[in-house]
């Protein structure tokens, strides 16, 4: 499983040989927070979009100077990394208005608190609507046009509609490939674990998409000959926010659970929906990024539940695990609503609070164990 091994490594570190090679060749890397940033625009500008993680962070001592103990630990760790210079390979940063934590962390960058080493550093904050309708699409299309112009001006490049179409095609291919892999998880013996899939998903955001697509084609061939995972106690659908640590999923899978599907930030929300390749590119992007599977920063709880419950059926999940980052209000409200809804639908659902670091691993395993036992007895 060479392709799987090659891709899985990329989740362990912030940078990797693909990024280093890209930089050596004179390429620019633009970091982005959140799946609401249209990466196609960055790609069309000839740059490498890199989804910012906080992998390897062990402290928030510096980050807390410009954050607060009541803020999401992912953003605090990420800001800590930034202040320590861990993102020095970036040439720019783009964030979308996902939540209060992201926007305040971004403000620390825009107030010049992060030493970027080489001015001028590109910063852009995207105003992404909180609901999807015609007005919102019109607004976001205009916002993406302003984004395009700012990239062109800052980096002295031209982004044509044809460039955008090529980028859209490349990212649609990535999405289709990942979906194909997910299809294989519907079977009785899925060929990949949930932890492995998370690593692949992370890799897809940390390397040139063309390289990822090439390796994914190889991987889809390789898994055909892999013995699937059939020795599990329960099939799980994992729901939640920014989860970048495969160890969290491993905690369930080591106890006999198998995550067969998800509704995660690095999971289906990132890639499930395609961009219309036949429409005007910016409008097509605006449509896709608004009407895609949403995060609870968006309205649309009922649509999210409808999708989750349909996936429970399709993937024959025995139960739902909702992981919520402490202090995250979006997932705080959503997890309460999910709990109420799934109770009525008689779908077992557990809500677990977590922090960015896996500090309470023992506690997590205890609760995972109890949940899996309960599922087995049903």
């Amino acid at each position, binding site marked *: 499983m060479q392709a799987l091994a090659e891709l899985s490594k990329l989740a362990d570190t912030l940078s990797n040989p693909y990024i280093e090679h890209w930089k050596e060749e004179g390429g620019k890397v633009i970091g982005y927070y959140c799946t609401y940033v249209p990466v196609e625009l960055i790609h069309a500008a000839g740059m490498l979009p890199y989804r910012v993680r906080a992998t390897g962070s062990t402290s928030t001592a510096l980050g807390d100077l*410009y954050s*607060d103990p*009541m*803020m999401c630990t992912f953003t605090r760790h990420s800001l800590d990394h930034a202040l320590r210079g861990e993102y020095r390979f970036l040439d720019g940063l783009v964030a979308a208005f996902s939540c*209060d934590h992201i926007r305040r962390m971004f*403000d620390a960058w825009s*107030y010049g608190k992060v030493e970027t080493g080489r001015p001028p550093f590109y910063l852009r904050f995207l*105003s992404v609507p909180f609901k999807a309708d015609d007005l919102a699409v019109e607004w976001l299309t205009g916002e993406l046009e302003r984004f395009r112009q700012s990239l062109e001006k800052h980096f002295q490049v031209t982004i044509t509609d044809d460039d955008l179409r090529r980028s859209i095609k490349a990212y649609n291919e990535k999405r289709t490939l990942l979906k194909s892999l997910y299809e294989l998880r519907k079977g009785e013996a899925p060929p990949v674990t949930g932890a492995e899939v998370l690593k692949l998903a992370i890799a897809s955001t940390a390397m040139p998409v063309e390289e990822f697509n090439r390796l994914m084609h190889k991987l889809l061939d390789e898994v055909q000959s892999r013995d699937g995972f059939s020795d599990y106690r329960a099939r799980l659908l994992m729901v939640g926010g920014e989860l970048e640590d495969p160890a969290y999923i491993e905690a369930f899978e080591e106890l006999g659970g198998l995550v067969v599907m998800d509704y995660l930030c690095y999971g289906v929300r990132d890639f499930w929906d395609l961009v219309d390749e036949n429409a005007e590119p910016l409008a097509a992007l605006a449509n896709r990024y608004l009407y895609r599977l949403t995060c609870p920063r968006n309205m649309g*709880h009922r649509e999210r539940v409808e999708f989750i419950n349909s996936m429970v059926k399709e993937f024959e999940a025995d139960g739902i695990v909702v992981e919520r980052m402490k202090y995250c209000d979006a997932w705080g409200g959503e997890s309460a609503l999910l709990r109420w809804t799934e109770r009525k639908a008689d779908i077992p659902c557990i*809500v677990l609070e977590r922090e960015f670091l896996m500090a309470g691993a023992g506690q997590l395993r205890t609760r995972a164990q109890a949940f899996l036992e309960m599922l087995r007895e049903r």
Partner: protein
Amino acid sequence: MVEKYADHKEVLNMANFALPLLEDNEELRHQRAVLLYHKAWLEMVLRAEEEGKKFVYNQFNLYTDLFYAFDLVPIPPEIWSLTKVTLRDGYGMCETIDAAHEAGIHPELCSAHKSAIGDQLLGNRIPPPAMIVNPSFPCDNTKVAYQVLAEVTGAPMLVMDCPYFGPDTDEKVAMDYWVQRVKELIRFLEEHTGQKLDPDRLKEVIEEANRAIEYVLEYESFRQLKPLPQPGVALGSAMGGFTMSGLPEYTELMKTLRDDIKDRVDKGKTAVPEEKLRLNWFYLHAFYDGGVYGWLETKGVVSPVAFHGYDVLEPIDTSTTESTIRGLAKKLLGFPMGRQGTGSSHIYIGDCIDATQRWQCDAVILSGHAGCKYIRGLIGLLRDELRKIGVPMLVFDMDTFDPRVAPPSQYYPIIEEFVDICVDKKEEGIALV
């Protein structure tokens, strides 16, 4: 089963008891005006239910003008809930906060919203809505809480999507989008009330609200004077802007506040005999603890301005329906707290510095309300910017609505130490930062 609206009826009883005691007391004229105003709103809501009027839950960062143009009765659920905060020795919201916790609402949500959700879950606490209106500002708390309220009440909800206002925002383009959303709100209200917007009624309501705005701005200009002429914390358009803006009662309140402070200026009255320090409370202080300002005044420390006493309003041009709607759209982005939540930290920080300088304050205090992430997340940046202009800042942990998080006995010593150091430094001519 608890009696319907028992807590709010008790609050009304308390108001009816207190009002005669405040009559003919010139020193307490503005407190009396505020109490009369809230009494009027409570009575209006209770009467409206009997009359079969329709309620709209308006998120508390929305001025109510447009709702009155449709003859709706606005209830901001947070404000309805916090009306009972002073009951049970300041623990008035704890029962409903706990009900939300027990139902699975995360504890880090703003307690005003937890309490509003708890009101729904326990029942008999708040009239049900015919519709709900929620703008996407100021914060995640409101977006989340209102999704929950919509699910629990089953009422149709309109989310007014607001663009992000950052340093690079094209304000004209952003405002055009927001105006479209206000027009969407009008269509929503028309659909759910079954009546078309009456432009004459809208004009009437807005012109009434304009009169209130003029009084508010005049009142706030008097609060900038040194020494401060009027004790207590500043009260601006937010004092009731979310309940009866557009009605004569609101205009009367603002006029009384203006008259009171003007009268004091004319008579040469001051808040304290000797003013030693001026504070900018640029966040909400505890609603169960109105005594903190009086306590500070015994030390010569006054509070000329606060978050909800800082307005950037202007009267709306009512010459055409379009100009009225555009002016209303701009006003809706100016509600204190809502305004600062529409975009990046530069809005809040810029406003805080402006308030500090124009109201001639020596120091800034933030009551660090647990659950308010959009403010807490910028404290480090604010600290740095205030240091550049030599202004010290105190932040202390507490909860604006739940005294159990940090009781006054815990944070009073923190405030005292801070103000004592500032006063001593001032007296010795040492820079505060």
